[in-house]
């Protein structure tokens, strides 16, 4: 459908100017195509803020930030997307990160496709993907919806249709292996060499061990150890290695050792024992551990039925072995999520109720800085980078 008589119109004059002058210029023109890269191992002070973009959830973001950097631009290292309440896992043994996300062929309609996307830590570019059964759990961000086991050879994705199961992905060959049903149970807590545990509605824990091909080797159900109606355990434990510290709604802590084949479940103890004020844990991501195994917990006073997602006005620091409260950090602003950076002098980073990130010295509790205006909408969950 050509229009006769139309010639190619003249190039803009400015182009001619460039060509005429670049040879004679006293300087080198800026190079074309430069793209920044990041280190293969992220510094200890880096975190990744998971922005679910709740008001625009197809445009979720994972924003890489240096929590130790006082400069607005210097702290912003890069960003990668995650579509429709995506989940993130970060490998330690290779420079990779994994995002499980959901697309529709026409944005908000059309065929649904669930994908595990592989990101290179250095380039922040997608380097591979595995298409999954379109069953992954669509929930607010919970770290235990995507976990790595078998020395990071297998990726496990929590599904909810509402029937619950786990999709198994081989990460080196980038291959979907299969699906393991976990009826009545939810979430993925890595267990032993190549297994995982889940919390069940009846107050028990289900443990499944896999073989290298992702097939079920064995399953085991624990005794009932909590009552979801009377005192539910959060499905978001503070993890220190294979030790999972589960807070409960009423303010108990139940530590579960998942290093062996069978979970070893310790007796609960009261976090606020002897402290007045009805303090309870709460928030979106209420509990985390540092590299030394100390447990940090967002706490709010006046706890009652329904306050388990209230922001915490303090972070309490516990020694889980001694079963002791070792410090209380009064927050500058109430917070909904916390994370600790790695290493001996960790930073405590908290998503405050303004949806900015407050950075504290975890040892002294001193507020160091606030990370604001980094392109975020709803940075609900924080991940310590590595």
């Amino acid at each position, binding site marked *: 459908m050509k229009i006769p008589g139309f010639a190619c119109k003249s190039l803009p004059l400015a182009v001619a100017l460039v060509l005429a002058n670049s040879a004679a210029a006293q300087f080198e023109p800026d190079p074309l195509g430069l793209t920044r890269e990041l280190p293969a191992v992220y510094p200890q002070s880096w975190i990744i803020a998971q922005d679910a973009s*709740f*008001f*625009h*959830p*197809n445009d979720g973001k994972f924003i890489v930030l240096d929590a130790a950097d006082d400069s607005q631009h210097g702290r912003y290292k890069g960003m990668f997307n995650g579509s*429709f*309440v995506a989940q993130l896992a970060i490998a330690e043994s290779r420079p990779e990160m994994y995002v499980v996300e*959901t697309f*529709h062929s026409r944005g*908000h*309609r*059309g065929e*649904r496709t669930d994908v595990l996307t592989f990101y290179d830590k250095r380039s922040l570019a997608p380097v591979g993907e595995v298409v999954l059964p*379109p069953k992954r*759990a*669509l*929930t*607010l961000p*919970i770290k235990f919806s995507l976990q790595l086991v078998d020395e990071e050879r297998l990726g496990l994705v929590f599904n*909810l*249709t*509402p029937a*619950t199961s786990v999709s198994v992905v081989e990460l080196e060959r980038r291959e979907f292996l299969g699906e393991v049903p976990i009826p*009545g*149970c*939810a*979430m993925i807590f890595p267990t032993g060499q190549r297994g995982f545990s*889940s*919390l*069940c*509605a009846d107050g028990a824990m289900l443990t499944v061990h896999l073989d290298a091909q992702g097939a079920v080797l064995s399953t085991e159900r624990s005794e009932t150890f909590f009552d*979801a*109606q009377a005192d*539910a*355990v*959060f*499905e978001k434990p503070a993890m220190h290695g294979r030790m999972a510290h589960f807070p409960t709604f009423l303010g108990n802590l139940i530590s579960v050792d998942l290093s062996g084949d069978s979970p070893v479940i310790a007796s609960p103890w009261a976090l606020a024992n002897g402290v007045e004020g009805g303090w309870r844990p*709460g*928030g*979106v991501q209420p509990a985390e551990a540092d590299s030394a195994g100390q447990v940090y917990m967002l706490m*709010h006073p006046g706890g009652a*039925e*329904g*306050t*388990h*997602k*209230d*922001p915490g006005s303090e972070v309490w620091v516990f020694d889980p072995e001694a079963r002791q409260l070792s410090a209380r950090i009064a927050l500058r602003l*109430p917070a*909904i999520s916390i994370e600790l950076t790695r290493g001996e002098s960790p930073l405590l980073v908290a*998503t405050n*109720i*303004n*949806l900015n990130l407050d950075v504290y010295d975890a040892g002294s509790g001193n507020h160091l800085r606030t990370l604001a205006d980094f392109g975020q*909408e*709803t940075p*609900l969950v924080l991940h310590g980078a590595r």
Partner: protein
Amino acid sequence: MNWVDRLFEQGVRGVAKRTSRRGALEKIGMMLAGAAATFPLLPVARSEEQESDAAASNEGEESGLKETGDPLSCDYWRYCAIDGFLCGCCGGSHNACPPGSQMSRVTWIGTCENPADGKSYIISYNDCCGKSSCGNCLCQRNERDRPVYRTFSANDINWCLDTDSAIYHCTTARVIGIALDS
């Protein structure tokens, strides 16, 4: 006062503010803790109830239920365990989806006391799906909310599961029965 309300009282995010005495929560920031709207398992609902063909008719006005309160306010009694955008602020109502969205039929249920008669009713929180976040009147009340393993009472789950699209738009609150213990 709920912490979400406190957030708005502080006015910390300019766009996040109460817009009327209704107390309907508006816009950003309030879904901080929980929010995808959603609600535990009632697959039974699919077979037990007739789907209505009527559009925008018979939205419960003549149901015989004694009513009080404002369905556009987060305080409304049926929302005791809701977590999401109120469909009444999105072109729908407390029991009808906005134009062009599709109602989920598998839902989560809550139990709320009706102040008009003092009885507790079973509420089915049907999500409306297939368009992106409505963004109006985000309402979060966590009473008897439980973690995701208690699927049938966890409000962090998106229940756009039996719909053509998994994308969440807003949430309704349908009365479907009386609770025995009321």
